[in-house]
């Protein structure tokens, strides 16, 4: 390939960030997310083993389910014994719990937070609302299917699910991670344009870069 062509391809790999005003485009990164392949099978297995035992939750309650997260850390449920701990910044967390219904306003923040997490990252969708809208299925404001906007690894049903079912969900996630099946990050990268189109369809005032690094 000629050098010129490489440049063109590189340029195409960049995001347009059309939602941003001209002045701000320089202030946001415009790289596309890309697939990351595992290095080595055994190394990856070892890492997955560790990842499954060190789950760092992004402390961001998006809906009513956030209430159910609090008891997890108390003496009764003690999620810490599984290595589940809260983390105040998406940069450091690797588990994102969508705590219930996602509205028009919160989906924007969910997408932003999800994109700011550094992979491998996992999403637990909590409650019926995240699956099919739940009791708000006919609302003008509630996202029916969260997996149209970000990839979801585990659903925990119920309205609301109790902390016990959350822990069960965590166990499921752990199994899935250890089996190496949680590949949401790559899924998101592969189907980036589709996800983006879905997001942009409902978020009309898109005032952020196309991918929030």
């Amino acid at each position, binding site marked *: 390939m000629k050098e010129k062509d490489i440049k063109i391809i590189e340029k195409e790999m960049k995001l347009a960030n059309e939602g941003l005003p001209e002045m701000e485009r320089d202030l946001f990164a415009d790289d596309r997310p890309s697939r990351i392949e595992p290095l080595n099978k055994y190394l990856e297995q070892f890492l997955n083993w560790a990842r499954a035992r060190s789950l760092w939750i992004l402390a961001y309650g998006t809906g009513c389910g956030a209430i159910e997260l609090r008891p997890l850390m108390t003496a009764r449920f003690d999620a810490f014994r599984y290595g589940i701990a809260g983390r105040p910044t998406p940069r450091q967390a690797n588990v994102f719990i969508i705590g219930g219904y996602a*509205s*028009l*306003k919160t989906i*924007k923040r969910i997408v932003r937070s999800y994109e700011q997490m550094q992979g491998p990252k996992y999403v637990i969708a909590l409650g019926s609302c995240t*699956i*099919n*809208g739940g009791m708000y*299925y*006919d*609302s*003008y*404001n*509630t*996202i*029916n*299917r969260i997996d*149209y906007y970000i990839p979801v690894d585990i659903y925990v049903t119920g309205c609301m699910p109790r902390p016990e079912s959350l822990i069960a969900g965590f166990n499921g996630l752990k199994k899935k991670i250890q089996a190496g099946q949680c590949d949401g990050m790559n899924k998101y990268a592969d189907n980036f344009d589709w996800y983006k189109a*879905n997001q942009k*369809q*409902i*978020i*009309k*005032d898109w005032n952020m870069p196309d991918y929030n690094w």
Partner: protein
Amino acid sequence: MKEKIDRLRKMVNVLQVVEKHPDLYFITLEGNQLVMALGYLKNTLNFKHLAFMQAVDYLEDNKFMLTYMVYNYELKANLGVNVFIDREESSMFSIHRLWEHAWQYQRELYEMFGIDFPGSPRVDEPFIMESWEEMPPMRRDFDTLAYSQKTYFPRPGRETNDPKEQMKKAKYPNYPDSPKIRRDDE
């Protein structure tokens, strides 16, 4: 309470008085006398607290009913002040000068019903409906289900049950008539 309303009568034209409860009255006023009445209620009759504002869409009458719920700490009584306004040119005087926090309610009403309150601060800023482009969603002629189905990718295969029937069927199959589930409209 009655005495207060009688005193109010001397000021403005009270169209209707409904006693729901010894501590809860609803009165209906004319729209152009509303601010004056509320000011009188607040300053003279001691209804110091604006608990909330709300609107009801009477699509059939082509009217909105605005309700201002004020509270008197001495009587420990609520008074709802209703006003009917035209649905097409829905606009009302702003009362943020009487109660500063009213701007937030007015902003919400503007967003949800499209009722304008000229002069109210930040009234046209989106409250929760960022980037909303349809008609105000709380108006009854807005079909939320259709909108939801059109926009939010409904998951196929979803079943919806009437809660009343579901309760009878799933939880109390042996006692079809009891307990009675109380609904508001009953």
